[in-house]
């Protein structure tokens, strides 16, 4: 078991956001987190990366409680792709991705780090923006750069907060394929908050559906993405088709 979350509770200034969350993540597993806006998906991911500290409960990373770990050691094991970022001062794309090497190096970056970064840029097809400024590329391109930075971190677990929200349909599929391949090839695991239920269905091994700060359903895509669950969590009427293995969701209308 890579990651084990036991009964965590979290509140921002005493407004409870997460209650009673427990989950596990296996080696080479992609876990999708779905749920309506404001249910606490991002908050959960931040708690796992100890950007936020849950008031209750424990998080075990390879059997170690992360509250006893140094931030740098956590950074070597987990990479995080935020939902969005802004930069005030300029930084080139290549320097941005190079920052992912921070947990592995001191002050100076080596030739080897550079090669790793270039490889990842090539993998994600963003080599042509390498020398551009991060603020001067499109939202989708920025998202790929942030994913590249997390990959450069060479962590065992990737935490992705809506990694495809700004991408067009082709790049969504591309990024998901890349994630799937990286997970398989390197034996790493990923936790991914995602709004597109069809992408979640196709590319995750297991789905955790949240509603109002609690886990509402969890299991393989077919068992979680049912008409009933989606109606209950999102208040939306859908059709669910299946190609035998994975469900396809066709949204119909919101229920009042």
């Amino acid at each position, binding site marked *: 078991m890579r990651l084990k979350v036991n009964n965590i509770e979290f509140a921002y200034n005493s407004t409870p956001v997460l209650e009673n969350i427990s989950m596990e993540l296996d080696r080479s597993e992609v876990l999708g987190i779905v749920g309506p806006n404001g249910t606490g998906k991002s908050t959960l991911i931040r708690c796992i990366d100890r950007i936020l500290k849950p008031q209750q409960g424990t998080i075990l990373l390879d059997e170690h409680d992360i509250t006893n770990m140094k931030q740098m050691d956590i950074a070597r094991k987990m990479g995080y792709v935020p939902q969005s*970022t*802004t*930069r005030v*001062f*300029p*930084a080139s794309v*290549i320097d941005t991705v190079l920052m992912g090497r921070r947990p592995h190096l001191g002050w100076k970056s080596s030739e080897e780090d550079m090669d790793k970064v*270039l490889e990842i840029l090539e993998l994600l097809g963003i080599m042509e923006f390498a020398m551009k400024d991060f603020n001067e590329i499109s939202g989708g391109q920025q998202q790929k750069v942030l994913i590249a930075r997390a990959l450069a971190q060479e962590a065992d677990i990737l935490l992705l907060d809506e990694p495809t929200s700004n991408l067009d349909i082709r790049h969504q599929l591309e990024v998901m394929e890349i994630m799937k391949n990286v997970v398989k090839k390197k034996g790493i695991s990923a936790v991914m908050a995602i709004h597109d239920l069809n992408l979640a269905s196709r590319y995750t091994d297991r789905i955790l559906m949240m509603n109002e700060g609690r886990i509402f359903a969890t299991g393989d895509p077919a068992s979680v993405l049912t008409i009933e669950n989606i109606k209950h969590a999102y208040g939306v009427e859908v059709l669910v088709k299946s190609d035998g293995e994975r469900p396809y969701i066709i949204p119909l209308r919101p229920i009042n």
Partner: protein
Amino acid sequence: MKAKHSLVTKEEVKEQYNKFVGRKFFFIFFFSVLVVIISGISTSLGSADISIWDAYSAILHKFFPNYFESDWLADACVWNLRLPRILMGIVAGIGLGVAGSVMQAILRNPLASPYTLGISSGAGFGASLAILAGAGIVSGKYLIIGNAFVFSLLCSFIILGLSSRKGATPETMILAGIAMMYLFGAMTTILQYFGEAEAVKEAVFWMVGDLDRSSWPKLTLITGALVCCIPLLIIKSWDLNVMGAGDETATSLGVNVKRTRIVTMVVATLLVACIVCFTGTIGFIGLVAPHLTRLAIGGDNRFVLPVSGLLGAVLLISADLVARNIIAPVILPVGAVTAFMGAPLFLYMIMRRGREYW
């Protein structure tokens, strides 16, 4: 898709990147040379007639007496009068330039300057207290200096202390800084309100900032502060880069954001307080030098810090050169001249820059 990838190859990108880094090293070299040249020119200018070569020669004579000649007049003029002042300009410029880039990076705010944490208002109040009321922490010769130093640190530490209780976010720091600026500014005004006209004038002059009070012992002190503080800040510059991507991202990359922010703030504050208590508040350099630097070489703080420091030195000694010579024998306050020369340059660069953000 493959064809699209091969538009730019790894080798090309690497080459471009190396060029990009080379450019940054060039600027370090360029500004270093510029500092030497301007110092030389500045040393040669003044009431006594000394040529540039005599000036360099007099300087080098001290180190290599066998190779360089010097006469008594040049020697006295250069070593006792002009050099302390110019070197003071160099170290103060370096300190303010470096501290400014650190403050801006750490607060992620283009308006931050070495004085954001209330150093200038604290120093101004401390000095006013000494000049106007004769009261202070230490007595005698060092009353003004000591007061300025202690009060600037006091002001900064109140801000740091308050904001660190709230997680030390850039916003709380800046707002706390502005609040303290008003508070200490008001206290200074009250002091001035009840002060003697002559003393008020002196206090105002102190705050504008100049290099008139330079001397070798002071220079040694500031250089010591520089040598202690700047390497510490440069070591942290990679973390400053990471923090530029936001506190969350920096945390996820293993940086202890709160501690790094407070440590670098304390170091930069100490550095600036050491300078300001001797020179008065020479304000503009710490704001402008980092911006001009980023326009030239981009935002990588590992290079922004040293280049901004060197540029700060260039700006300050050029301003001093003008301040001493433009209506000689009157010496204008260098603090005002820096703003006079710097502001139009700064505006020009802002209007010319090709991007919308900093």
